[in-house]
């Protein structure tokens, strides 16, 4: 083990760390400052379109976790076939997005919101009207470019970082 010109290599490294003093911080104070997430974010909760859904259960077959449960049946009063229950156990959901990709009627979307933790386990199991789109549960543009076009652009760290002026 030899220490030739001991210290020079250390000093070279120190110049790099020293130059960082003059750079802009890249950290955000999260709950107060928020960045825009991706337009295609696969957020916690699925958004279901009741009108478009035909109850074909393609999403339930595509789901690798088996988190989607659909009950359909005939409605003799209105003389039509209807979806009685559309139930998603978001506790099982891994947000892979395969259900959204497989849906032939564009009736299911990933959620754009991401802070959707629950206090009770039973709240994770959502069905029918709780799955509809609302102000707290916006649609994400995952696999739906027409939805993505209406969402704010993602904040990129590449553009946020101001490099030093050489």
């Amino acid at each position, binding site marked *: *083990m030899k*220490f030739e010109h*001991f*210290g*020079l*290599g*250390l000093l*070279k*490294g120190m110049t*790099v*760390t020293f130059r960082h003093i003059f750079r802009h911080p*890249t950290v955000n104070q999260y709950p107060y400052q928020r960045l825009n*997430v*991706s*337009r*295609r*974010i*696969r957020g916690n909760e699925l958004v279901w379109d009741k009108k478009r859904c035909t109850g074909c259960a*393609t999403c339930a*077959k*595509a*789901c*690798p976790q088996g988190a989607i449960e659909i009950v359909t049946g005939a409605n003799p009063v209105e003389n039509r076939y209807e979806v009685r229950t559309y139930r998603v156990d978001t506790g099982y959901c*891994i*947000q*892979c*997005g*395969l259900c959204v*990709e*497989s849906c032939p009627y564009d009736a299911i979307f*990933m959620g754009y919101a991401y802070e959707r933790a629950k206090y009770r386990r039973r709240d994770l199991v959502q069905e029918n009207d709780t799955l509809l789109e609302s102000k707290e549960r916006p649609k*994400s543009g*995952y*696999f739906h470019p027409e939805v*993505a076009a209406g969402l704010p*652009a*993602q904040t*990129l*760290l*590449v*553009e946020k*970082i101001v*490099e030093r002026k050489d």
Partner: protein
Amino acid sequence: MTTREITLKTEPFVLNVGPLHPSTHGVYRMRTTLDGEVVLDIEPVFGYLHRGIEKLMEERTFTGIIPLTDRLDYISPMSNNLAYCLAVEKLCGIKVPERAEYLRVIMAELQRLANHCIAVGSFLNDAGAYFTPFMYTFREREKIVDLFEMVSGQRMTYNYMRIGGVSQDIPEEFLPALAKLLDQLERFVDEYDFLLKENEILIARAKGVGILPKEVAINCGISGPVARASGIRRDLRRDDPYSIYDRFEFDIPVGENGDSYDRYRVRVAEMRQSLRIIRQAMKDIPAGPVKAEVPQVVRPPAGEVYAHIEAPKGELGFYIVSDGSIAPYRCHVRPTSLINLTALRQMVRGWKVADLIVIFGSIDITMGEVDR
């Protein structure tokens, strides 16, 4: 023999390093036999993160397995996706569209950059450059992860590649952002090299430490940067070109001594080569579809297939046996990390405990892939 040596009798004792040790990068236990501070032998104990992924694969459809492959080597899911999709495509004989091939190469090389950022950062963290290089590399990885989030919607388990292409086309703001990222990364790699390349402390800690001779590396089946640092010029991108890697021009960096310092240098050199490949791929990416016409439920013909790629950590292979149904009969993963880990015992014998941490860090393993 002096009297001092006769009276001070030492005897080996066993020390457990791990399973929850900051330098084991996951839940990994090394049952170390020590004589004083010298490592006599180690016995690796793993399985703490076993989730039975190979068994789970037998019960899922071929498309439904792709999210599972994300969770093998969770540092570089894009490469896992690519390896798995290549295996199924080989079995079905699916031709992937041109644009999808280019996108796959861009994603796989970005993934290599992100993985080497973590590998190098945590290696230096283990070697004693406490958290400064780690923070720098994580900052750069964050930029890459941002782009992955833009195309796939998530920051870790991307689930982007599909059998017959990729899941969706890139948004229009992707390529300008990528060009900007490449410029920044190039400057970062230079700056980063300058930070620690000649650092005397790092050289004293890593140079000549944990030498893996060429013969041992070949006998253990070591692949990836660890093998290349030992002087084995083997890169599947060159030796068995998959996807469209035969169209790009790049060098294979090779180390000389096979020590920890060489493994670190090879990784940094590979980052430069990845940047080169991405630039070439960006230049001539064609327009067109990104996914071949593949039925929603893939039913490959009965048979078996093995496909391998050069993942950031080494050779990653998928061996699939199909019986013609919608799920594989058997799916075996050739994990990079587990096989690279087998050389650890030969590398650490005779070194001190502090060197054990450095050598272990220089192999760059992910426990998710070791245990599966």
